[in-house]
């Protein structure tokens, strides 16, 4: 794997993680084994037995995957901060403002400052809230988002792999996890015991009913065309032929609209709807829980852009002037700019309108798109 044009000698992220894991395990086993040699018999035996477990292949794999996850999380966090920064800056320019500009270069570190501020805030739970649901919802939300980071590769080796090979059917996994958050939103809205949060949660459910089916149909057309449930397979199929955004243009548009709805962004931010519902289902959250929810919102934005990039825009396909992960991120950032542009321009749709759009417009278009994909495959075009 090459980083910034320098060959690092690692074939994938897993190689690097395994190296780090071996190093960690070496230190651990040196401490534990050394202690075992010098301690009396019972403790010594126990420590030698522990040392054996530490040196086992299973433990190596676990530590390696943990290291891999941490690296992926760091990459995602860096991108997440950049996404927030882009949104704030670009939105500001579209509104004739300047956006953040004091903290860090061009205000890049403003998000971190805001996060630190949120850490200092009190975490208030409403008296009559259902504590379990109220606390569990952000956890479910973040877990679902982190799960997708694992299965979505940025570059061939840059994802959560075991010895360089991905889990099979990552597309299905990703979209299954992507569909969980509305459930968490509904729980959060119900458990906060507030009319605004409840309406927000119910709207999230209504929203999901309208966009989920067209989106999955659009994904299905890509899967039909690529012949695999794997992001790597899909990107390789696009490298071999053409980016799927060209033959499946209708599907691309449908997918983009649905992904904006999935991300609960304007114009489909019904569950939040500041103008009507205070802050929607996040009304009662305060302190870092609120910060967490906002961060996960943008993390989901990053993931949504990555998904659209991998499925329709050829993923890491591109001339070698940029590293492969650079192409993926560049396309994702481009899509994010389009999303921010939409946010600055479009008015929020009503609940009945989103159902209208989802069922009467997007669903037929998605079916048509699937038909196109099937025809293309049966003609042997791909």
């Amino acid at each position, binding site marked *: 794997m090459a980083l910034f044009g320098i060959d690092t000698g690692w074939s994938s992220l897993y190689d690097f993680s395994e190296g780090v894991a071996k190093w960690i395990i070496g230190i651990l086993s040196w401490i534990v084994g050394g202690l075992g040699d010098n301690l009396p018999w019972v403790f010594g035996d126990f420590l030698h037995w522990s040392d054996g477990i530490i040196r086992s292949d299973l433990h190596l794999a676990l530590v390696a995957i943990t290291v891999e996850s941490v690296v992926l999380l760091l990459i995602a966090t860096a991108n997440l901060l950049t996404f927030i920064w882009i949104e704030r800056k670009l939105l*500001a*320019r*579209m509104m*004739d403002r*300047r956006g953040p500009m004091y903290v860090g270069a061009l205000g890049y570190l403003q998000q971190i400052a805001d996060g630190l501020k949120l850490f200092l805030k009190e975490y208030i739970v409403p008296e009559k809230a259902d504590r379990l649901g109220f606390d569990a919802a952000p956890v479910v939300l973040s877990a679902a988002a982190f799960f997708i980071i694992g299965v979505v590769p940025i570059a061939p080796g840059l994802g959560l792999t075991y010895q360089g090979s991905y889990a099979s059917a990552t597309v299905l996994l990703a979209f299954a996890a992507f569909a969980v958050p509305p459930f968490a939103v509904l729980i959060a809205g119900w458990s906060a015991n507030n009319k605004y949060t409840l309406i927000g949660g119910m709207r999230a459910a209504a929203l999901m009913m309208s966009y989920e089916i067209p989106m999955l149909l659009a994904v299905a057309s890509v899967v039909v065309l690529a012949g695999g449930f794997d992001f790597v397979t899909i990107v390789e199929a696009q490298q071999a032929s053409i980016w799927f955004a060209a033959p499946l243009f209708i599907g691309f548009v449908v997918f983009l609209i649905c992904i904006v709805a999935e991300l609960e962004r304007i114009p489909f931010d019904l569950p939040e709807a500041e103008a009507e519902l205070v802050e929607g289902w996040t009304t009662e959250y305060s302190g870092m829980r609120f910060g967490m929810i906002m961060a996960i919102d943008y993390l989901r934005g990053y993931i949504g852009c990555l998904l659209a990039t991998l499925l329709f825009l050829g993923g890491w396909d591109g001339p070698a002037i940029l590293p492969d992960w650079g192409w993926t991120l560049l396309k994702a950032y481009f899509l994010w700019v389009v999303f921010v542009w939409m946010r600055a*321009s*479009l008015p929020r749709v009503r609940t009945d309108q989103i159902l209208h759009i989802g069922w009467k417009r997007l669903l037929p278009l998605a079916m048509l798109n699937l038909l196109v994909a099937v025809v293309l495959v049966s003609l042997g075009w791909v």
Partner: protein
Amino acid sequence: MASETPVPERPEKKLSLTGYVVKPMLVTLKQAIRSAVRPNTVLYPYEKLELPPSYRGLHALDFKKCIGCALCVKVCPNECMFMKKLDDPELGKIERPGIDYARCLFCGLCTEVCPRECLFMTSDFELADYSRESLRYDPEDIRHDGYGEERFNRKLLPLHDFTKCTGHAKCAEVCPTQCITIAQVERTSRLKPEVDFDNCISCGKCVEACPESAWKMDQVILETLETDRPFFYLPKCTSCAACARVCPTECIAMTEMPGTEKRRPDGTMTKPKKRPVWDMDKCVGCALCAEACKFDSLWMEAAKLYSERIREESVTV
């Protein structure tokens, strides 16, 4: 039962995809490109907008032009201005207005009413402070000598001093535009020149001609000539001279009226009564004389307005 008001039918305007999506996005795109170079937001503490000269911000007071007539204090609708006695090393014992900005509404009436055009409102708006007390600005705090000099139309005009005048009428003789008229002051034996300032060409010949040097040339702000003038009703005057004492510009001269002497019981004659005579070119219309007059022989439109309220409400500042 309440009659049902018919709901007016709203004309339904169908927005197509272009009207709903494409047009707004083009608008924002245009805006983003325009503001990418320079957004409208002004980086306030570092950059400041150049405010128009008519902006009503903090006051500036020209101590040297101010005559302490307190018209600004009287006209202030919020009663936030007050007069403060000062002992200035240059100007001596004076009275100048101060402002309590905690109550000021920045209406600008004080600057409008100022007869000497010495009170201004600057474009400075930074008033934030830590306590209400510190928002009370003393006259020294708003002192700004020479502020706004360039704003006014000035003209070199001869100003008359009635106390020196002996009625030679030489000025009227030499005046090339014949803008000086000599008239007798009512009930007195004195003559008094009146200048038509519109026709005056500022030649200064009257100053040279006057044997008593009662004329003086001065740069006069033309706006100050348009102030209110006092009306004088002679029959009610008791010759108390309260108006002359109170006049801040010393434009009132008490003049003897021959024929008003009275015979005392011992046969001697009393001194003749005096009446006030105004040098109108010096009068600033501050209405202090009208206020000082206790016998209703002096009257001013503005004074009536201001002083009535003052008396009713007995303002303490």
